[in-house]
């Protein structure tokens, strides 16, 4: 299994795209922090990167990589190796390299320029978001054999979580504004990993405003240690569940 992971990681490094991605993140992050006069603005630029670019790159690269390594996977299945071992090695190789790319690219300047608690939370959330979208990519790649369909599905997932979901929530908010929906909204945010990530970071960035009317409720939930644990747990679920479904599909699949 470790040998397969090694193969995957070596292959990804040879591929150079992830290296370019790391470099790009680094340029983005360093310039964001050194161009703006306050580190707060740099943090905001990085927040947008975490919420948009990281998911997009993770989901697209992973989907395409899985389709391209179909032959490699076929070859491996002909060997006496269990299928879930193949799948998990592939997952660890991909998610590991995406997470490390984020850590090296954006994490290092974050640790240098912002206060430890905020940078810790942003780095861990950025890495978790990478994992979530790698996992979602596994799901879409395992569902269909058609490459175009799979990649399309990945893009759709990204569009939905990054853009559409918030628009839907805003729409819902206005439709149901006469009802006490604060608690329900917490439940709804749990259904989008990007929103979960955003709110967790927001609670550190805009504490004063989040302490306002509804903010108090969110703060009580997400701001407490318990809520943080729950939110992180939910994010891990977003990694585990899509991966698990994809694994089940892969195990039964006729390659």
């Amino acid at each position, binding site marked *: 299994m470790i040998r397969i992971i090694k193969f995957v990681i070596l292959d990804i490094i040879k591929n150079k795209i992830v290296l370019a991605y790391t470099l790009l993140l680094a340029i983005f992050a360093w310039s964001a922090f050194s161009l703006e006069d*306050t580190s*707060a603005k740099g943090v*905001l630029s990085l*927040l*947008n990167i975490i*919420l*948009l670019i990281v998911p997009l790159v993770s989901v697209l690269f992973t989907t395409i990589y899985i389709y391209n390594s179909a032959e490699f996977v076929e070859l491996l299945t002909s060997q006496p190796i269990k299928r879930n071992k193949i799948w998990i090695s592939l997952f660890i190789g991909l998610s590991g390299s995406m997470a490390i790319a984020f850590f090296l690219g954006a994490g290092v300047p974050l640790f240098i320029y912002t206060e430890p608690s905020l940078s810790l939370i942003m780095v861990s959330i950025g890495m978790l978001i990478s994992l979530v979208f790698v996992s979602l990519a596994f799901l879409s790649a395992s569902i269909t054999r058609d490459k175009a369909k799979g990649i399309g599905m990945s893009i759709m997932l990204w569009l939905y979580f*990054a*853009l559409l979901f*918030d*628009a839907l*929530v*805003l729409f819902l*908010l*206005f439709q149901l*504004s006469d009802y006490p*929906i*604060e608690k329900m*909204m917490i439940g709804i*945010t749990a259904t989008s990993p990007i*929103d979960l990530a*955003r*709110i967790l970071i*927001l609670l550190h*960035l*805009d*504490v*004063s*405003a*989040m*302490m*306002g*009317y*509804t*903010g*108090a409720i*969110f703060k009580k939930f997400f701001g407490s240690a318990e809520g943080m644990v729950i939110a992180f747990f939910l994010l891990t679920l977003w990694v585990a569940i899509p991966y698990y479904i994809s694994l089940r599909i892969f195990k039964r699949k006729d390659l």
Partner: protein
Amino acid sequence: MRTLLCLTLMLSFVSTTPAKTIRVGETEIFKTITSALKKASDGDTILVFGGFYKEGNIIIEKSISLIGIDMPVIDGDKKVEILSIHADYVTLKGFKIQRSGHASIGDPAGVKVYDSKHVRILDNYFYDNFFSIYIQRSKHCIVKNNRVVSLGVDEQEIGNGIHCWKSDSLLIIGNYLSGNRDGIYFEFVTHSVIWRNISENNTRYGLHFMFSHNDSYFTNIFRNNGAGVAVMYTKHVTMMNNTFIENWGDAAYGLLLKEISDSYIYNNRFINNTSAIFLDGANRIIVEKNLFKSNGWGMKIQANGMDNVITKNNFIRNTFDISTNGSLVLSTFDENYWDRYEGYDLNKDQIGDVPYRPLSLFSVIVETNPPAMLLYRSFMVSLLDKSERILPSLTPDNFIDNIPLMRPLPL
């Protein structure tokens, strides 16, 4: 002739009576403050030496100076009002006054001043009283350098630190107030000054003004109070050089202005409050050279005010700089520094060439629909905000700073 002689005799008698100094203490002739007060006459000084005095309600009806040496403790045993002052020219200095009675009828206090003039309350330590200093229908009183600590948890079960009612020309200087319902409370108090006080961790307001005209407060610090500072139903208030920090909560404001007119807010610092200033029914207020930093809302201006001038302020790192609840704008917002301003300055006169719209669409949305705060900083929302800035459709288009500054003012 005889009457004249009588008068001269009387006058000489009065002037030759020297002011006595009476000592109270365990080793002195007088063991209690009450017995010393009986012996004293106007103009005397009573020195109270360190010790523990529990004498029920002590009533002062003569113009004396009551001075504590080595912080004597006067205890109310949670039953009575500790000191009641019914005379002019009384000085109370250097005591620890603790554990007054708690009752909502009669409002017992650590020290209560009734209908008196020129009373001075200096350098005392008030601990765990219901009301600590209570001044009613009095004039020209000074409350200076007192430390007022109460242990209030619930608003209903604690009184105010310095409570002034129907008074005039008071000076409240250099006091420290914490754990009270309101740190300083003014109702029908006029021509008074509040200067250099620190008011923090009070369960309701750090400072509370009601119907108190022509007052000023300078250089105070209001920190982490339940609901910040409230100035209500008042005219001609001057607020200068104060600091409002960390007043957090769903109904907390750095400074709450309700039905205020003709007032001046100058050179204050608002840092880390949920809402730095909330203006409701405020008219002809000048807000000048203040710093708004890291607040949830810099200013919440309700549409029911008019002719307010907001100028030369720094708005830095607030989640929302300004928000309002209507489309009517009768105030001006010129010549401020907004850190969100993205315009340019071609002629290098430090004034942005493009007017700035401080009201973001999202702040309007949040105002009508608070749970929408959940979507803050989401890409969708930023997109909406950007387009609204370019082409205002939902926000009032005269909500505008025509002279936005390129650099923060040196405040």
